[in-house]
């Protein structure tokens, strides 16, 4: 009898619950659980800045980074290698964007099912708006890298996922637009957030993303199922940007040192920030960023009395970009470090140091404190100018005013009759190292001409393959093709 009881109690012991990990069974029970669920979606943003530097900045004419004998993952990106299907940067984008989408889907499903535990309806609306915005954000990122990607709008099993095909570009845009249109009314303005909520998604951020999505959709259709569809949504975009501008919540920083102060470690959440990916240092688990260090060679840190930051070699800034700056442009010296000497060894080449504050180098290279600004107000203004150039309501004077406001802050003289090429040139210098160059080239239709000429002039090491329009998209990662044989069509050119 006693023996049988012992056995029974033993059998209960087979139901061991994890001691150090929570399980889904007991979660989503109190409002805070849903907030933490949404936080996890934000967390998927943490790789976003690095991705823009690796896949946009490095792909563009801003960097000439093929000097390491082919051993660096970025060389294939910069050199238009045909075999990027296994490139870690290309693979990372697919996985991490979908990881964010899955977490957003989890939260949205749980809100639909158990959302009534969040009795504060405003909070519940906000949480849903945040999740929808972030889901749209990740889809927009995917769309720009890969073109046609599958739409996953709920939590899927592995078996379900295996059967989901790529969606047409138009459907993906519709999905993004629907999410953002649902998010805008329930998301608050910046002023509604304070303390630990500071930096959450605002309605202005959602409007900016929607505007940018409309603009990207309106870019030229290169015939490759890329993000451009030749749609004419410039006016819708301009209207959304106007709403942000007219909200009065944002302004360009002015005054001495204004450009630098946008990126100051002590001036985060400044009035130019519309949306940023946020980091903080010295936490456990680590909540810092890696992007400030990503384009910076190690020996420069050494030369400034700092330890190695991960052994990276230089990703040199192209001569083309160096020469593009007019003299007196204060943005150049802030953004770019030109040459240095360490231990008597000279490095004459230039690199981007925009995000590095040498007085704030963290002890762990993955733990930089500075936030990454995804869109700043200057961008909103310049996007507005771009819409006008494409036929949205507005005047040449408005365009010139916007661009000259930017130029004057950079220490340059005003100019007139700014055209698209000129605008893009100004964007290149204003947003250098911010990951927008490659997207700008594609959206503006300048990519083929600019890149072809650039390769011809810049490629003294003969490390870049000839440019093709197919290369405005990246290939679908090999691992994903392998997991779903026969379901996907690889992008042309790979």
């Amino acid at each position, binding site marked *: 009898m006693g023996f049988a009881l012992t056995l029974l109690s033993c*059998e209960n*012991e*087979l*139901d*061991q619950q*994890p001691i*150090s*990990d929570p*399980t*889904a*069974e007991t979660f989503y029970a109190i409002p805070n659980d849903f907030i*933490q669920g949404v*936080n*996890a979606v*934000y*967390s998927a943003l*943490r790789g976003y800045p690095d991705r823009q530097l690796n896949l946009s900045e490095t792909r563009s004419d801003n960097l000439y980074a093929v000097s390491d*004998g*082919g*051993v660096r993952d970025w060389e294939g990106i910069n050199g238009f290698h*045909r075999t990027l299907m*296994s490139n870690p940067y290309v693979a990372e984008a*697919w*996985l991490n964007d*979908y*990881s964010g*989408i*899955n*977490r957003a889907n989890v939260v949205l499903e749980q809100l639909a099912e158990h959302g009534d535990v969040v009795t504060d309806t405003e909070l519940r609306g906000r949480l849903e708006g945040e999740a929808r915005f972030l889901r749209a954000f990740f889809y927009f990122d995917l769309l720009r890298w890969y073109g046609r990607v*599958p739409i996953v709008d709920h939590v*899927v099993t*592995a078996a379900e996922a295996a059967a989901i095909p790529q969606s047409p570009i138009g459907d993906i845009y519709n999905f993004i637009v629907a999410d953002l249109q649902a998010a805008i009314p329930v998301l608050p303005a910046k002023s509604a957030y304070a*303390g*630990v*909520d500071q930096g*959450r998604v605002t309605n202005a951020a959602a409007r900016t993303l929607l505007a940018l999505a409309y603009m990207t959709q309106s870019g030229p259709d290169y015939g490759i199922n890329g993000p451009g569809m030749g749609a004419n949504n410039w006016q819708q975009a301009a209207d959304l940007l106007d709403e942000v501008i007219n909200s009065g919540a944002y302004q360009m920083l002015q005054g001495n040192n204004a450009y630098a102060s946008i990126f100051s470690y002590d001036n*985060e*959440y400044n009035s130019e920030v519309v949306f940023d990916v*946020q*980091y*903080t240092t*010295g*936490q*456990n688990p680590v909540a810092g960023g890696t992007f400030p260090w990503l384009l910076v060679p190690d*020996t420069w840190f*050494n*030369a400034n*009395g700092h*330890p*190695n930051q991960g052994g990276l070699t230089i990703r040199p800034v192209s001569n083309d970009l160096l020469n593009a700056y007019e003299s007196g442009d204060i943005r150049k010296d802030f953004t770019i470090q030109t040459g240095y000497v360490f*231990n008597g*060894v*000279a490095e*004459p080449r230039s690199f981007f140091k925009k995000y590095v504050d040498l007085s704030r180098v963290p*002890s762990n290279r993955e733990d930089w404190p500075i936030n990454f600004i995804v869109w700043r107000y200057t961008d909103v203004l310049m996007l507005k100018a771009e819409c006008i150039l494409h036929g949205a309501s507005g005047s040449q004077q408005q365009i010139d005013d916007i661009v000259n406001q930017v130029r004057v802050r950079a220490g340059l003289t005003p100019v007139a009759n700014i055209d698209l090429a000129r605008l893009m040139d100004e964007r290149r210098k204003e947003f250098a190292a911010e990951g927008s160059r490659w997207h700008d080239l594609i959206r503006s239709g300048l990519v083929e001409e600019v890149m072809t000429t650039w390769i011809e002039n810049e490629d003294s*090491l003969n490390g870049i393959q000839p440019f093709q329009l197919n290369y405005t998209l990246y290939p679908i990662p*090999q*691992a*994903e093709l*392998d997991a779903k044989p026969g379901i996907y069509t690889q992008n042309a050119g790979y």
Partner: protein
Amino acid sequence: MKLLFFLSLSLGNVSAQETAIKGKVIDSHNSNALPGVSVLIKGKTTGTTTDTTGSFSIQARRGETLILSYVGYKSKEVVVTGSTLHIELESDSQGLEEVVVVGYGQQRRADVTGAVTSMNTEKLAERPLPRVDQALVGQMAGVRVKQTTGNPGQGLSVQVRGVGSISAGNEPLYVLDGFPLSGATPNANGGYSSGNPLDNINPNDIESIQVLKDASSAAIYGSRAANGVVIITTKKGKTGKPAINLNTYVGYNERSKKLDMLSADEWIDRAVEMINAQWVNSGEGRTAAQSSAERRQILGLSDDEVDTRYMYDDRWLQAGHPGLNFIDWQDEAFRKGLIQNYQLSASGGADAVKYYISGNYNGQQGMIKEQDFTSYSARANVEVKANKRLTFGLNVTPTYSINNDPGVEGKDNILHQLVSMSPVQEASSGLYPNVGDNPQYQWSTSTNSPIGKLEQTLAATKRFRTVGSIFAQYQILDGLNFKTTLNLDHNDNTFKRYIPFTITGSLPNRQSDLTKRTSGTYSTFRRQTLVNENTLTYNKTLAENHSISALLGFSYNSDKLDNATMSSQNGYGSSTITTLNYALGVTGNTTETKNVLLSYFGRLQYAYKDKYLLSASARRDGSSRFGANTKWGWFPSASIGWRVSQEDFMQNISGTLSELKLRASWGKSGNYNIGDYSSLALLGNYAYSLGGQLVTGLAPSGIYNPDLTWEKSDTYDVGVDFGFWNNRITATIDYYNRKSTGLLLNVPVSQITGFVSSLDNAGSVRNQGWEFEINSQNITGGAFNWSTSFNFSHNSNKLLSLANGQSQLLIPSSFDISHSILRVGEPMYSIYVVRQDGILSQEDIDNGAALYGNETEGDPKYFDANGDGVIDENDRIIMGQPNPKYTWGITNTFRYKGFDLSVLVQGQWGGSIYSLFGRAVNRTGTGIVDNVLGSWRDRWRSPEDPGAGKVGKATGTFGRIKNTDWLYPSDYIRVRNITLGYDLGRMISKTVLSGARIFVTAENFFGHDKYDGGFNPEATNTNLSGSTQFPEAGDYGGLPIPKSFIFGLNFTF
């Protein structure tokens, strides 16, 4: 005292018939005298042992029975009939009468129907091995021991009959004196971060080791037996006079191999060639003839600046290279390390109590500076027979060990750095470039001196482990016994590391930041395994011919692991204190996991007339690790044996063929190493920062699988056992076929799920092969004796299926493209790389040879496998398999008078190693700051001077693609052990010592392997895949295995 004397005297008087009986004991085969034979009067405690001439003298009465026992011989009972006795003992070494320990019991070797192999442990105490697993190398067919590390005291990898699991580990279950130890799967780097079952188990205490290879013998251990079971039995006391044994040795160990790297002069030759080429290519009008001064001027550099891409150090080419040191880093770091061992043991027993008590000290200085291992262990095995029916026992083994290892093996660790460090350095820095106040040499890497790191890093693993068991056995009826045991394995492990700022970063930050760059870590784990086993056994012979043995049991097994780790955040506030109380900011966390395993098991063995043997067993295991829908599983087995030699028709040839047994078995077993909570829907913390503050983010960390369960293994085995000429030669042949299914596999899923893979039971793999063991007394009977044991095994591994009909799965790599593949129809983890076919000539290029990137003449020529005219990752083909196809070992033992010599030679072939260490020391395009393999001496320099045809030009800029240049056969042959001993007992008076022996042992002294790009073809120290889902432990700078030489003495009192 006086009284006692009187008593014994008077007793002597009373038993008037008792007289001094003299006798001599000899070997029945060769008539050699047997010294040290225990002679005991049955039913009394009186006893003695034979002297060196095999003679003894004992007070006994006629009609009394003497029991003679001696290790390696069958015990014999002799009735006293006269005053002198001549006794022959029959050798037991042929093994068929020997008893083997199987799961939950013992069996006569002759009755075994499964595949069970035993190891000869006789010489174990005379080998300088700090660990038991090292001793298994080359001893048993089908048991492969990979010596994965040269760090003394670290766990090795043992595989029984190939690898049957992709990600749940391939290590066998270890059972120590009946206690199934908690299994450890090596971590992704190939090490054992939460302990290895054999840690701190003192080899000198081992009595016997048996390996249960097939499922019929192992399946009694159910869900843990798929990788085989290693049964270790420790020494117990024997009835008789107390024996006190002192075993001691002292000697040294050192590296068995030095890697051929470019010498300083050769390094300079290569550097000058490369710098000149870069200079000439960097612009118009630049020629190799231009001096550094001219180049400086052209580059517009000031006098104290250099551009190392384009300028070399003028001192390189000056006579005597003034101001520079030429350093052979390997020679500076390796040493002869002292090894010593002292073991004192006492054993003995009377009818009621038997005991074995030992204490051991083992000290091993590593072959590389500052690495060492010290262990202290004690053991008490005590058994008390309380009455006729009840027996109690206690085994307890407290141990403590310290392993100092500054972090020698693995990628970016000291050995890697010291091999690839530039051999030319500033003389002013000595052996310490970029350490303390010394700067980095301009043409060298930023690595801090590896010698400095060796000397200044503090890193110690301290382990306190106690394995304790108590048991009680009660004889309910004659032949029916109940036994209950309670076992606890308690392992406390601490790891402390302290890295002072003086060996970090660059000179400016050492000078400015000082102790801010110092870092420290302290981590601990505690593993507790608690096992309670209850068995009921019944042994009976019915009607003379039917012998039955039955077993029923229940066991409870819980395993708990607690981890804690702390590390410094922002340096230290002190330059002298190494503990974390002086760290500026400390982060830490703790985690705990637990699993419980419940089991019911039974076994029935039946033999008819000792001829027809039958055995069947079943176990039912329930584990907390398994998913909610699959908590319990059955593991049955059955086997039959036929001792043909017992048949009447064989009797006329029994003089020649003394033993012939046919065996066949089948069984199912499992592998339950699937992680403690893998089947549950866990949430992960995806932290984020909002408003400058850390916030918790929780989301599912994987795809939930409530059906997750153990891996299954189905094994068929057929075998034949032979014995010739009264078992002077015995041999065993086995064929096996093991199919493992439901493999724990991170099945790649579409990443649109948000995850890379989902843990599932999918895929299957087959291991089949054959094994051969032979033991032969080649020469016996005279003063000279020679015996041989030989084992040989073949295993072929084939992946049968993956998940969802997938045909292949590329194992990711953290270093460039994949080089390892799981492809159906091929061996697991096949090596998948581009094949190099010599060097490109201009003619090849003109003829349209396929090129990788911007390759030119003098770069390597690669095989365009898919024929598309370019070389890229699509040209990878399977070029080898990681596991050897054949392994073998042979031990020859020679005896002449008091001398004995034993030689163990062992080897393997048919496998390959893909060495990512090549990425450090043999990479196309390796820059000048790193040193490269000696094979670069014979590189391509010009069409007229094409070198050896393997290494392309140093000035190539095409980059690299994973190809066969890092592929080496893992074949080797090694003289593992040579021991020469002499029996000093022949010269020493028996009144002082009952035995004495002197020996010298050379371990790993000779050998040959084909791994020119690394030290040890079996090394694993780095996770080459960089993935926890598909871990691939490989070599990225592993130490050579040590060779050692010792001198030892062994006294028995």
